[in-house]
């Protein structure tokens, strides 16, 4: 019943989870991992993340400061390589794929990390390495089916459009708008979701509604976020949301 990260290749899944352990956290801290010790394991000398080649399982003790006090979430950090969602990889590694699928099916929280699409990138970012909005939307069909039918235990699906620093000109301002404050914020969780959805996920709105409709009986509701390892406020938001539900 843990939390699992999933997403395509090279979208920054590992880096996102690893950066959470950075001790300079505002409301979120990882108690059981030492950021400096992990650095050489996860990062290359140039600071970019090493590609994940196997399914890594770790435990994260995430501590979140909420208005009621500190809330502790034990996270099974199951970090699969991005290739796992490609059919050839699944055919070549059937036992690993099935074991991963079983874990996801038992997970209570799922973080889907997605890359930005070409149309929203800042002018100085090379668009060649990113897919178009149409391609992104087509790929999202697969996630819609996956969440609707393959994750029966999931109560929380958080979709993170990662690398927000590549597409938001005013990252700090955006973070300020979405910021969480345990003693009262300008936006509540629904308003945050709608704000992010209308700006960055508007073209898959019907997909999101479909998941909510199909899985609504089990209390599931999808929430959209933007994340970046360069902005602590945005990085922490999905965890604060999860801790409200899953924390002790």
């Amino acid at each position, binding site marked *: 019943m843990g939390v699992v990260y999933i997403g395509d290749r090279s979208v920054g899944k590992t880096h996102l989870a690893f950066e959470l352990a950075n001790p300079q956290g505002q409301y979120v801290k990882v108690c059981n991992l030492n950021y400096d010790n992990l650095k050489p394991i996860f990062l290359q000398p140039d600071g970019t993340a090493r590609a994940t080649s196997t399914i890594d399982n770790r435990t994260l003790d995430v501590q979140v400061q909420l*208005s009621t006090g500190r*809330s502790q979430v034990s996270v099974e950090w199951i970090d699969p390589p991005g290739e796992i969602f490609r059919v050839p990889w699944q055919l070549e590694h059937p036992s690993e794929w099935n074991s991963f699928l079983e874990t996801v099916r*038992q997970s209570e929280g799922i973080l889907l990390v997605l890359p930005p699409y070409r149309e929203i990138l800042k002018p100085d970012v090379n668009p060649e390495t990113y897919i178009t909005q149409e391609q992104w939307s087509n790929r999202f069909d697969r996630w819609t089916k996956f969440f609707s039918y393959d994750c029966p235990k999931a109560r929380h699906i958080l979709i993170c459009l990662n690398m927000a620093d590549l597409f938001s000109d005013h990252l700090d301002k955006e973070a300020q708008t979405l910021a969480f404050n345990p003693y009262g914020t300008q936006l*509540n969780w629904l308003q945050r979701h709608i704000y992010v959805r209308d700006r960055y996920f508007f073209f898959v709105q019907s997909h*999101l509604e479909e998941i*909510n409709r199909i899985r609504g*009986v089990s*209390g599931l*509701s999808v929430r959209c976020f933007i994340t970046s390892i360069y902005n602590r406020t945005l990085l922490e938001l999905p965890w604060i949301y999860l801790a*409200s539900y899953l924390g002790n």
Partner: protein
Amino acid sequence: MGNICVIGPTGAGKTTYLAALAYCPQVNNQIFTITSVTEDAKKIANKAQTIIKNGASLEPTIIDGVKIKSFYDLPLYQFKIKIKPWLKKADEINLVVRDYPGEIFNELVSGIYNELHLEFIEECLKKDIEGCLLLLHGWEDNSDNFYSQVMGKFIELMDKHDRSQNLRIAVAMSKCERGELWPGRLDPENDIFNVHLPRTKSLLRQGILAQNLQFYAISTFGVLERNDPRPNRQDETDQIGSSRSILRIPKKWRPYNLISPLYWLSKGKRMRYGV
């Protein structure tokens, strides 16, 4: 100690009702003091603060086979409620409440074949249970038909378990902040149940002893102001296609009539002070 079961269909707002009850101490009130006794009650009070007040909704209670595998895995909420009306003698009730998954209620009509669900119903009708708070939220066309069938089965089960003479049933219309229901809250038996659920009401009156049956209107979210009876709730359906609802303005959170059905279930007499 009053053992109470909260039952009702999926989406009736059972868990949210209990969260509001647990959170009540934080809401200023000169007459009532509610103390959460068990860890589950304390946890749900925290969730009211971190989830409901932050514009999200609680997870439904479902038998997922992992966290909830048997009756004993259901959250157990124990509250001590002190009632101190002005210039009157203080009164106190101790409640132990189990929050039942809605799927069991939904299944009553077709018959419960799942052993686990059967176990839940058996526990609900045991001798040490003083009463059931039955939360219903539907008032539209088909609701009356469905509820009357379910209640017919429930009355049969009460009889079978020898509880037809000694189990109090408080039937409450939940989410009464809705415009169609709010004006009927003062006399819910006549102005809500008679109007919207006549078959269900009549069946309950026929099947349960008069002294063991009461009708209530409750609203966990309440309305915005005394003179502004717009619901203090927002449905996610229109905005994101989800069937959940959230609190509209947390600062104006004033639940309506949460305690009186529990008071009656526990004491057998009606409470004279509203909350």
